[in-house]
C-alpha cells in the first residue's frame, strides 16, 4: 500500500473553482466535506445505498461516496449549499418546510439534490414517478409521505413560476 502518492484535483463546486492536492483514494464526499468544508453533504453508508451523500455532477445526481475526487477532475459539482439564497429557500426547500418533509434532516440534502434534478427533467410528474425517483434515497424518519407531497407541491409551484 502506498498512501503517500498525491494528485492535484481541480473541481468547480457551486460555481467556484477549487484545487486541492489529495490522495487518489480520497472520496468526493470527503473532498467536499473536509477539503473545502461543505458539510451539508452527509455520509450515511459509504457504500452507495442510502443516498444521503447525493450531489450533482454536471447536473446529474450521483453518490459522492462512490466517486473518488480524482474521477471527477474538472467536473461541475453542485451541493445542497447552492440551492437557497441567504434571503429565500429554493421552492423545493420551501415546500419541504411547509409540508414537514424532514425530521432529523440528515438525509434531506441528498433528497433535495435528487429532487432538484428530477423536477428539472420531469417537471410535471405523477405520484408514482415521484416515488420511483425517491426510491434512490433512504429516509428513516418521515415514511416518505410528506416528502412525496412536498415534491408534488414544488412541481406545481415551479411550473407556475415558468408560466
Amino acid at each position, binding site marked *: 500500500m502506498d498512501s503517500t502518492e498525491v494528485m492535484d484535483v481541480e473541481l468547480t463546486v457551486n460555481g467556484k473553482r477549487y484545487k486541492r492536492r489529495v490522495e487518489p483514494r480520497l472520496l468526493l464526499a470527503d473532498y467536499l466535506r473536509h477539503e473545502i468544508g461543505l458539510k451539508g453533504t452527509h455520509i450515511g453508508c459509504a457504500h452507495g445505498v442510502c443516498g444521503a451523500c447525493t450531489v450533482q455532477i454536471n447536473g446529474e445526481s450521483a453518490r459522492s461516496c462512490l466517486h473518488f475526487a480524482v474521477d471527477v477532475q474538472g467536473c461541475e459539482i453542485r451541493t445542497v449549499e447552492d440551492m437557497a439564497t441567504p434571503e429565500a429557500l429554493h421552492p423545493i426547500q420551501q415546500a*419541504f*418546510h411547509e409540508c414537514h418533509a424532514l425530521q432529523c434532516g440528515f438525509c434531506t440534502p441528498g433528497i433535495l439534490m435528487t429532487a432538484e434534478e428530477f423536477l428539472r427533467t420531469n417537471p410535471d410528474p405523477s405520484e408514482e414517478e415521484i416515488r420511483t425517483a425517491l*426510491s434512490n434515497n433512504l429516509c428513516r*424518519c418521515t415514511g416518505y409521505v410528506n416528502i412525496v407531497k412536498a415534491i408534488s407541491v414544488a412541481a406545481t409551484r415551479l411550473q407556475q413560476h415558468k408560466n
Partner: protein
Amino acid sequence: MTSHESSKFIGRSMARREDRYLLRGQGQYVDDIAEPAGTLHLAFVMSPHAHARIVSIDTSEALRVPGVVAVLTGEDFASLVAPIRADIEMPTYKHTDRDVLAREKVRFVGEQVAVVLAENKYAAQDAIELVYVDYDILPAVVALEDARRPDAPLVHDHIDNNIIFQGEFSTPDFAEKHAGSKFVIREKIRHGRLAGVPMEPRGCLAVPDRGDSLVFYTATQIPHIVRTGLATHLGLEESCIRVVVPEVGGGFGTKAQLYPEELIAAALCMKHRRPIKWVQDRREELLTNIHARDHLYDLEIGFDANGIVTSLKLEFATNAGAYSSYPFGATLETTGGARMIIGPYKIQNYAYKNYCLTTHTGPAGVYRGVAQPSCFLAIEALMDRIGRKLGIDPLEVRLRNVVTPSDMPWTNVLGVRYDTGDYPACLKRAREVSGYDNFRRAQRADRLETGKYRGIGISNMTEITGTGAPGWRVRGLRSVSGVDSATLRIDPTGKVTVYVSHASAGQGHLTTFAQIAADYLGARIEDVRVIEGDTGSTPFGTGTFASRSAVTGGGAVICAAQKVGDKIRRIAADMLQADAQDISLCEGKAVVAHDPGRFASFQDVAEIAYSIGNGVLPEGEEFGLEASEFYDPPVVTVANAVHIVEVAVDARDGRVSIENYCIVHDCGRVINPMIVDGQIHGGVAQGIGEVLMEEMVYDENGQLVNASLLDYLLPTAMDVPNLQIHHMESPTIDTTGGFKGVGEGGVIGAVPAVANAIADALSGIGANVNSVPLRPAHLLSLIRNAVREEGRAAIEESAY
C-alpha cells in the same frame, strides 16, 4: 389568567424552526463539527468471531503506518475505564460486565478488541487492517431457542443456562380460572431480530476544555445520563464534563445508550489532552449498535362462546445478545413484553413467566416501541384467532374485550392505570373511515382475486408513554431517573429562553416546546428560544426516548412558565398599582384586566427584576426572572390507536403490497398536529419494514450475514403508502398539560396490523402466519405448502 384556557399556539401545525438551517445543509451533526487542531481519529478492530479466546494481539505493523500515534488493547484500558455495568435492581438479575475493549474473550461478531489513534481517519482505517489478533475459536450459541439448552455454551461463566434474569407473575387462582375457560387457543409468535438503523451513524468528539475538563460532543438522546455514565465509569467528577448534543440524525432508541466507544474517546481525551474523534461506518453501525426484538411468545388464551377473553397465559423469552447495555440493562424488552401485552383489553386473569437470555450476538436494547410492537403482534394475532374460531368478526371480538370509557380510570391487573381514552369509539371510527365493513362484505372466502390474496388487518393498541420515576423504579432501573426539567428565563430585554433537559433527534422540540412556553407564559412565540442537549446549560433530566418529551418536558416547561408568569404578575401589579390576580399575560405584556391601556411589557418587568434602570423590586421579591422546575409524571401515560390495513399478497411470488392504510390515533392533547402526524408516518414506515423486510440474519456460527444496507433492507418510497390519519383527543387528567406521548405509536400499531392483514389474506388457504418478518420467500413457502395442484391452477386462472 392561567393561560391554560387560551391555547394560541398549542394545537397548531406550526412549521418547524429547525428546518431553516437543516434545509440549507447547515445542520451540525457530530461529524460536521469543525475539528480542533491536533484532533486524533479513532478506528476500532472488531472481532470476526462470535465466541473466541484472545490469544495474542500484534500491533507492531499497525504502529508503522504513517500518522498512527498509538494502538491500544483491552489491557490498556483496564485501569482507565471501569467495565460497563447498568445499575439494575431486580431479583435474579445477573450483571454482564463489559470491558470497553474485550479482554480474554470476545462474545459477539463486532466486539471491539483494539483501537487505533491516528492523525487522520484514512490512516486509522489503514492501521486496523494491520492489527493481527490470534483467536482460539469457541463454540457459540446464537438462536434464542438454543440459549437455554443444557448443552449450550455459556456466554458468561457466572450466568447459568444463559438466563440474565427471569420473572413471573400471576393473578390469584390463575391455574383454576384458566382451566375453567371454555375454549383455549395455544399459539407461538416469533418476532425476528432487527435494528433502528438511523441514517446518521453514531459518533463523538471529545475536546479538552479549561483546566482538566472536557467537552463531549456525542450523538445521543440522553445527554445527562451519558454525563453521569462517563463520570462513574471514568472516575471523574461530573463537574468536569459537559455533554453537548449536536444535531442528531435519527435515534429511535439506538442512541439512548452509553457505548464503549464513547467511554474510550473520553478516556483518551482526558489522558492525552488532545481532541479525539470517532465516527462509525455503516458496517459498525449494523454490527455494534443495539439490536432489538428477537422475541418468542408462547401463549394460551382462554375465552368464552362470545369471544370474551377469560384468561391469558404467557411464557416469553427475549434474546439480549452478548451484553446488557447502559443504562437500561437487558430489562426493558423482557419486562415490557410481559407487562404491556394486556394493552387495551379487560383481561382479569393473567399469568406470565419471562426469560431474558444471553447469546453470542450483538447486544440488544431499546428500539422504538421497545417490546410493544411484538407483544401487540402476539395479542392481536390471538384476537383474530378467537374471531376465526367462533366465526365472529375480529373487530367485534376486540369491541367486546376493550376497556370502555365507563371503566375509566382503569387499573389493569399489573397495576397500570389508564386514565382517559375511548377505545370502543376509536375502533368504531377506524371501522368507518377505513371502509372495513365494505371490504369484508366484498371479500371472497378464499381471499383470491386477480392472482392476489387480499386481506384486512386490525391493530388495536395502547402505547405506554412518558414513564415517570415510579415507572422506572418498578422496572428496577436505578440510573434512569424518570423526571425531566426545564429552566425558563426571561432575559433583561424581555426575550424568553427555555432550557429543557431533553435532546431531539428530529422530533422538532425547538418548535413544540416554544409553542408550549409561549402559551403558558403569554409570550410572543418569536420571542421564545428553546435550548436543549447541553448539560452545561440545561438542568438535569432523563432524556428523549420512550415517547417521553411531550409529557415530561412539556410538563416541566409548563410548571416553569407558570412560576415565572406568577412573578411577572406580581412585579407588574406593583408597577401598575393593580392586583396580581387582575393581571393577564398576553403577547409579551402584563395587562390589567378590563383596562388594556394599562400594561407593562416583559422587558419593563425584566428591567425591574434585574435592577436595570430606576425601577424598584416590590418588597420581598428576589432578583432575577427565571424558574427551574422538575416534572415527574405519573407511573405512565397511556395513548392508544387503531390501525386498519388492506394488503394484497401476490400468490405467485409472495410479494405484499399495501393497498389502504387507516389510522385513528389518540395521544391526548395535540401540541402540533403536523409533527404528530410526522411521528406516526415514520413509525408506520418502520413497522412496515419490520413486517415485510427487516431482519438481522445471523448464521449458526454467529456471523451477521447482512451487515450492509445492500442486504439489510429498509423501506423505500415504493414501500410506504399514503396514510390516512384521524385524531381523537382524550387529554390525560393525570399529567400537567394533558399530553400523551406519540413517538412510538406508529410502529406499535403497524406491526400487528400489517401482519394480521397478511394472515387474513392467507387464512382462506389455511396458512398460519405466526412470525415476522414475512418476506416474499417465506410467504411463498407458506402458500406452496397450503395450496395443492388444482389450487395452483386456480391462481394462474385468477391472475389473467
